[in-house]
């Protein structure tokens, strides 16, 4: 008998040959995304009087290649909130599946908790019943998820905007990124939008009070203007985009908007880039 306890219960080397150590786990944590591959660019959003407007173009880039031109990067949640994804598209799809599952679980939970009486068939409003997850709850959930993943060194490579209403039915807009950093502001933008769109949006909604004076039409116009500026200057952007408006009446999402009234006249005056010498 082999007197070494380390050898007990193991396949005998003289019968099976030495164990191939390469099957053993290598050290280091398990990781998925170490770098983003197929990416979406900016997501922008601005609050107004009774809700939030959000937009993102329909492009998924592979580096500088415009790889997929019909990718929906705004996802509605429980018809109460909108989630906009910038960054890695596969991580976005993972999160989207996860959120769909959560939405289904929530819907079942809620049906059990509150069985409507047979006579009560006038509840046709799209407003979420109390107790259902609102945008603030959803943002907290996503921020915990993202922070956990970064702490496991297995980040989801996204910056996410969450829009909807909070528990006091006030417009809610907040962001969470791949490190779990969260913040909120009357207007928000990810990626290139933080440089190009955010200054424009802040002209119209510098403070919460300013945002509370904006009408829905004004907010939509500002967002459309910003999408245009982004298309002018962001090389990884597209002129087809999704636009969502979320209010107490639910989510209105149009996923095939086309940029209107573009003017490239400004391009004539640009000097200093490329090969032209004058």
């Amino acid at each position, binding site marked *: 008998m082999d007197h070494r306890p380390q050898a007990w219960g193991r396949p005998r080397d003289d019968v099976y040959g030495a164990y191939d150590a390469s099957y053993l786990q290598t050290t280091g944590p398990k990781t998925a995304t*170490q770098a983003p591959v197929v*990416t979406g660019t900016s997501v922008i959003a601005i609050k107004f009087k009774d809700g939030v407007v959000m937009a993102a173009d329909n492009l998924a880039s592979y580096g500088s290649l415009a790889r997929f031109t019909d990718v929906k990067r705004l996802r509605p949640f429980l018809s109460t909130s909108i989630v906009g994804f910038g960054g890695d598209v596969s991580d976005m799809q993972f999160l989207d599946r996860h959120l769909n599952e959560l939405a289904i679980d929530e819907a079942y939970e809620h049906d059990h908790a509150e069985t409507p009486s047979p006579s009560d068939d006038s509840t046709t409003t799209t407003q979420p019943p109390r107790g259902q997850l609102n945008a603030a709850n959803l943002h907290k959930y996503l921020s915990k998820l993202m922070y956990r993943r970064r702490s496991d060194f297995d980040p989801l490579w996204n910056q996410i905007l969450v829009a909807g209403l909070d528990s006091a039915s006030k417009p809610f807009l907040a962001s969470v990124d791949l490190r779990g950093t969260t913040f909120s502001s009357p207007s928000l933008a990810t990626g290139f939008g*933080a440089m190009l769109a955010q200054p424009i949006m802040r002209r119209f909604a510098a403070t919460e009070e300013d945002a509370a004076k904006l009408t829905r039409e004004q907010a939509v116009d500002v967002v459309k203007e910003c999408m245009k500026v982004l298309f002018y200057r962001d090389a990884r952007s597209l002129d087809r985009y999704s636009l969502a408006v979320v209010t107490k009446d639910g989510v209105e999402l149009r996923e095939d908007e086309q940029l209107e009234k573009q003017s490239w006249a400004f391009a004539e005056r640009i000097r200093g880039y490329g090969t032209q010498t004058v």
Partner: protein
Amino acid sequence: MAAMFSQNPLMNGPNYSISDAPKEDAPEGARQHRFDPYTDNGGSTLAIAGDDFAVLAGDTRLTSGYSINSRHHPKLFKIGGTTADQKDATIVLSVVGFAADGEALKERLDTICKMYRYRHGKPMSVKACAQRLSTILYQKRFFPYYAHAILGGLDEEGKGAVYSYDPVGSYEREQCRAGGAAASLIMPFLDNQVNFKNQYTPNSGEGHALQERERRPLTRGEVEVLVKDAFDGAVERHIEVGDGLQIMVITQNGIEEVLLPLKKD
């Protein structure tokens, strides 16, 4: 070498428009994580202990790089109240550094203080809370919360108490402390104005015989002026500080909170 100048993403690897583009690979052989779990979100905090009060303050700007993410992101939190609105809280925590870690730290300390209250039927003392916070920080010694925490409250005798921490839990009770991006700008100012460092009584002697100005506890009015001046100075000289000034004053009667404007440039 040719691949360096190639426009082909398959050869170069993809290029990115988002800010967290992966860095160059490590030198050959050494494989390292390309993901950096930390960032610095700027901002500054300060705390001053008085005779029967403690003042904590922090700006409300949240940055990443040269961008301002939010102009209203508070760094001061009431800790250990009975409910979520923290109406009956007696302790204030300020965190500055990496915002996500700060948030996680605050939530852990708050739940621990709430559990203590439910179990013992009384709020936690600042002294106990301060020791517990140190333990929380040290528990993550090898993957630290990247935040400079300052805890404020009133001690058992009703005197103002300020405890300051490093990211791994070393802590000390102090008269005053500045933390965060502009700490190196504010701290010497506080040394001079709160602890009267480098202040001497005129004509009291020559060289080493010169008498130091005698220390006395500051009044609440004096402290509030110091806090505002400290932040006005920091805003002027540090780009990551600005937008709003959140001040919390802890007294026998509870916690008073004010929000003042700072320069937004």
